[in-house]
Structures are given as C-alpha cells and as structure tokens.
C-alpha cells in the first residue's frame, strides 16, 4: 500500500506535470531549432510568435463559443488551432517579407539577424498586448479533469490522490502526433528532404536546383504551426498571458541548446530534460520518500534541493553546464 501511495504521489506531483510541461517545451524548442538549422539564426521572437498564434486561437475560440460550437468534453480551442496557425503564419510571413528578407539578401551575419529578431520580438510583444491586452485570459472549456484527485482517492482507497487533467492528456497526445508528422515530413517528402539539404549545405542545395525562397516559406509555415500548437497547449494547461510566453523563451532555448541546436530529435530530448530538472530539483521529496523509506530513515526536512523561487535558475545552470562540457549539445547539433 505504501509503495502504491508513493508511486501515486510521485506521478501526481512530478511525472504528470513534468511530462506535460516537457511536451510543451519540446514543441517550442523544435521551432527554435528549425529556424536555427535552416535560416541560421537564433529566433528570439519565438516566445512572442507563440503568444501571437495563441492570441489568434483564443479570439477564434471566443467566437466559436459565442456561436455555441463546442467539442463536448474537449476544449473548443482545439477547433481554433488551425485559425491560430493561419494568423501566426500570416504574421511571420509578413515579417519575413518585410524584415528578414532584406537581411538575407545582404547575407547579413547571424548575430545581426539575432538582434533583428529581438526587434521583431518587441513588435510582436506590443502587437499582442494591443490586440488582447496584457492580462490573463481564460479560454479553456469542456471537462477539466479526466480523473480528479478526490475521485481517484474514493475509487482506489489510497491516501494519495492522482489528478489527471484533460489538458495534460491532450498536450501529450498532440505533441506525439505533431512530432510524428514533422519527422515524416522531414524524412520522407521531397520538400522535407530539400529543407534538410538546405540546412546541411546551402551552396550545394542551391546548385542542385532547390528554390531557397520555397524552403524559407515552408520553414516559416512549419514554425508558425509548431509555435501556435505549443502556445495553445500551454495556455490550455496553464493560462494565457503574453508576459509568461515571453518568459518561456529561456527554457525553450535551454531545451534547444541542451539537445543540440539544429537537431530536431535533440530539441525534444532537451525539452524533457529541462522540464524534469525544473520540476524534480524544486520538488520537496519528503512526501514521496516517506512511503519508500523504512520509518527509522524517514526524512525530517522537506528534501528539497532548491526552493521554488529558483525554478528559472535551473534552466540557466543546465545551459551553462552543457555549453562548458558539450557545446554541441547532447545530440551533436551545430556548435554555437
């Protein structure tokens, strides 16, 4: 019984939240890593692209809710994702047409593009706030729990409860589907292969007749989709507030760099590494350990490695360690 209780407490407070958060980070990091691999710069505007895409989805969700459209137990926002993607795609393509294209034509150095993307970030930042405002927005509806802590306790008779939210299940399923489609696209389709060729060696790709503008266009479309999906999932699971999306930039970049910039598989692994470290290091393990340890060895203190205020520091520390000892990341991406 103690053993089961321990497992349930671990799942409730560590495994489930970390897996959901890791999936959201992985989707965000995939977008960053694709831009780095194909367009060759670190896109600082990615967090705000997520915010803008989510904003379009939130507005559509409200519209659908007003028309009485609903998915029953599932959140209406899932229906709004395609509209969010359209909005985000329009935004990034316009930005590319009027901003990035100019610098690409000049063959500007990556560091210049990074600064340009910071400018774009501030513009997106302001744009999102002007349209939807700086406050928290609620757009989740449908059934909140697959199983709530109270029901679980009553069903199993265990002392610990296990809560599983609909948004967490949707997050993981969607992330798996999106990643599968993305890898199929990159590895099996002609366009995907041309993108990889362009990423490996731009000059050779141009010589073999790949149209660079088409590669850029497709990359932006994929990035806009990934950003919107990641943003909507994060918003459903937590809440939508433009500033928190801006703050997500740090763990997302940490995930992409830890996995190896430019390597899609690495981005996913990096997302989960960051999420599990953040949750695991700041969790007070006492609750779980009391079930596994013999009574004599039960911990007195909270067994918390780092207090929760330092959550964001965890991404920083992992980033520093990886850059010091393995600058190419776990999966041999491009060195910074």
């Amino acid at each position, binding site marked *: 019984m103690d053993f089961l209780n321990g497992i349930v407490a671990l799942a409730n407070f560590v495994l489930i*939240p970390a897996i959901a958060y890791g999936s959201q980070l992985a989707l965000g990091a995939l977008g960053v890593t694709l831009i780095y691999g194909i367009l060759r710069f670190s896109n600082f505007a990615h967090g705000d692209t997520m915010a803008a895409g989510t904003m379009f989805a939130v507005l559509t969700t409200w519209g659908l809710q007003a028309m009485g459209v609903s998915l029953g137990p599932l959140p209406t926002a899932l229906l709004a994702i395609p509209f969010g993607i359209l909005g985000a795609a329009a935004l990034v393509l316009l930005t590319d047409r009027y901003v990035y294209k100019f610098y690409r034509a000049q063959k500007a150095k990556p560091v210049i593009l990074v600064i340009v993307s910071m400018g774009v970030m501030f513009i997106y930042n302001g744009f999102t706030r002007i349209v939807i405002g700086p406050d928290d927005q609620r757009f989740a509806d449908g059934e909140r729990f697959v199983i709530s802590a109270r029901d679980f306790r009553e069903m199993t008779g265990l002392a610990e409860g296990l809560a599983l939210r609909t948004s967490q299940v949707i997050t993981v399923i969607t992330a798996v589907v999106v990643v599968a489609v993305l890898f199929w696209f990159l590895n099996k389709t002609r366009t995907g292969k041309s993108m990889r060729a362009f990423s490996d060696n731009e000059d050779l790709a141009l010589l073999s007749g790949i149209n660079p503008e088409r590669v850029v266009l497709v990359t932006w479309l994929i990035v806009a989709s990934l950003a919107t999906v990641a943003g909507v999932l994060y918003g459903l699971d937590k809440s939508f507030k433009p500033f928190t999306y801006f703050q997500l930039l740090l763990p997302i970049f940490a995930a992409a760099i830890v996995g190896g910039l430019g390597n899609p598989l690495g981005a996913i692994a990096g997302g989960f590494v960051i999420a599990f470290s953040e949750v695991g290091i700041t969790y007070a393990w*006492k609750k779980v350990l009391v079930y596994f340890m013999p009574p004599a060895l039960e911990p007195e203190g909270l067994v918390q490695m780092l207090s*929760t205020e330092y959550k964001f520091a965890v991404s920083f520390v992992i980033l520093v360690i990886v850059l010091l000892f393995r600058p190419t990341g776990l999966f041999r991406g491009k060195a910074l």
Partner: protein
Amino acid sequence: MKKLLTATAAGALIAGSAFAQDNEIKMGVLLGYTGPIESLTPAMAAGAEMAMAEVTESGALLGGATVTSVRADSTCVDSAAATAAAERLITSDGVSAIMGADCSGVTGAVLANVAVPNGMVMISPSATSPALSAAEDNGLFFRTAPSDARQGAVLAEVLVEKGITSVAVTYTNNDYGKGFADAFQSSFEAAGGSVTLTAPHEDGKADYSAEVGALASAGGDALVVLGYVDQGGAGVIQGALDSGAFDMFALGDGMIGDALTEAFGSDIDGTIGTAPGSDNAGGATFAEMATAAGIDGTSVYAGESYDAAALMLLAMAASGSSDPADYVGKIEMVANAPGEPIMPGELAKAIEILAGGGDVDYNGATGVELVGPGEAAGSYAEYVVDGGALTVVGYR
C-alpha cells in the same frame, strides 16, 4: 549664460517668497500618481483635499487660514524620486505637513532621508508594512492604515479558534507579503500553532505546480495564502485544488474579492479570510460626502487619506500653530479618546471645540484610533466562503 542663470535663480527665490502669504498653510500630498497604484491615488489625493477644503471654508483654523494642497509624485516604487519630491515639498514649496507617502518602501525612504532630518510630520494613509512600526522616526511619523502585523495576528487568532493548529504558508514575494507572512507566523506560533513551510510565490506566472508540490509535501490542515486574488494567489489555490493537496484555505486581504468566488465558487467552501473593514458610521458619511464632491469614496484608502489630512489640521488647531514641532504632540490627543467624537464633515465643529480649549476624539471615515508607535489600531472583517459566496461573519 551664467548671468542669466543667476538672474533666473534669484527671480525664482523672490517669486517663491513673494507668493508665501502669511495666512496660508501648505500641505504636501505625496502619492504615487504614476506607477503601480496610479489608479488608486487620484481618489486618495481628492480625499485629502476634501478635508483641506472643508477646513478652509470653515475659516476657523488659525484665524481663517487657507489650506492649499501641493501634490508631489512618490512613484510608489522609486525611493530616489520620492525622496527628491519630498525635498522639493519642504525646501521649495515650504509645506507645513506631508500627507503620504503611499507605498511602504518609499514611505520608509522619505521618512529617513527627508522627514526626520527636516523635522517634518508625515501621516501615511496606506503604508502597511510592519517594518515601519520600528522605524527611527523621532515621533514624526503616523499612519491611518493599520500595520499588517495586526492583520497577521487577527488571522492567526481566527485559525486557532477554529481548531486549526498546523498550516503551510505561501506569500507573494514582496514587502507586503513577506511582512504579513512573518507577522502571521510569529502570532500563530505564539498561540501554539505550527507552520510546516513558508514559501514565497512570484506573481504573474502561469504555473504554480512546483510551489504547490512543495507546500503539499510539507502538509498541514490548511494553506494560508497571503497574495493577490488576480495574481499568483489564485494560481496557487487552483494548483492546490487540482492536485488535491489542500481543500481548506485561509486568506489575507489581498485575496478577498469577487474574483475569488467567481473563479472557485463552492470548491473552496469553508475557507476563511480577513480584510480591513469596520461597521463604523463614519465610512458611510464619508462615502456620501465624496459622492457629492464627485469622487469615489469607496475607493481603497480614500477615507484613510481624508483622515490623515484632517488629523494634521486638527492638531494644528489644537496647538494654535502650523509649525510641525508644535503640533506633532497634539496628533494623538485629537485622534484618541477622551473628547467629543468627530465624524467626517464635522471638522469645523472640531476646530471650534479645540479653539475653546476642549478635547476631541477624531473618528473620521475609518474610525481612527492611534496605538503603539502612532498607527491605526485597525479593525478587520472576518469572512467565510459559504455556498460559493463570501460572507462577513464578524469584526475584530
């Protein structure tokens, strides 16, 4: 150029002294007209100015003196800017009293750097940090808002009476939250309770599962949340409910609001909370007067601002002088019993009594009673969430 500068400076000096009429009393109104509480300060300043206008109209203070308001911006957060503004009020505007400052941090800075060196009296309507009680003030600083230390004690008292002896505490990570949490913890432990963990939370995050996880590990009969209802406080409660970590909460004043019951409804039935509030008659009178004057009298700290300005003016009347050194000793006398109780709108009557050598007990808009180091005793309403609605069950 140099000549021009000298000439301008000299001109300014002459102008400054020329405008200072003999029978004019200037009062500085030092509030954050810009910054985080800029939405509250217009009503606060207007409240203070209502008291000034009332006294001016009566024509009874110090032989018919006119009281004028000089507004200065404390910014609420920038101590350097607030200090400079207060310096200007004293050296260039020549005020005889300062109604302010507003936020606890800048109030402490202005008190230490400007008010004490210049011997200026300050009454803050809204600084509630317990740290100000122990500030080195030479007896020059008062406040019409109660210290959070008092609320911490009240909340602890309520919990102990309900038989709750073990709690986890989370507070919003700023001066307000930290001071409140410290005060709560010491009173609760003094009353025999135990605090399993005190953890801060940052406002404006999307996710509080890590904080809730730590608090759940520590355990306790209830979770004490000293935060803001439209910020992290609500996020923490949501997280605790979702993970089944706590279902009983105890809340500070920042958490008491309609947003709370809108968000959680009857999920948090049985939750208790405290917030400043009293059932005194002055509040309603003040609200009516404010509405007549075109201001929102129910706005937070508007009544306290009226009271702060009124106290200083009555102390001047009692001492027959507008010199801070003379009237500072009379502030507690006019604020507390014995004497004729004074309601808002009765300032003229109070000045007459004082001029005739009598004593008054100023109650004002918020039932002012100064205790300890010159701060309001404060009265608190006790709330309970019942059937998804906040209900007042008593006053302490």
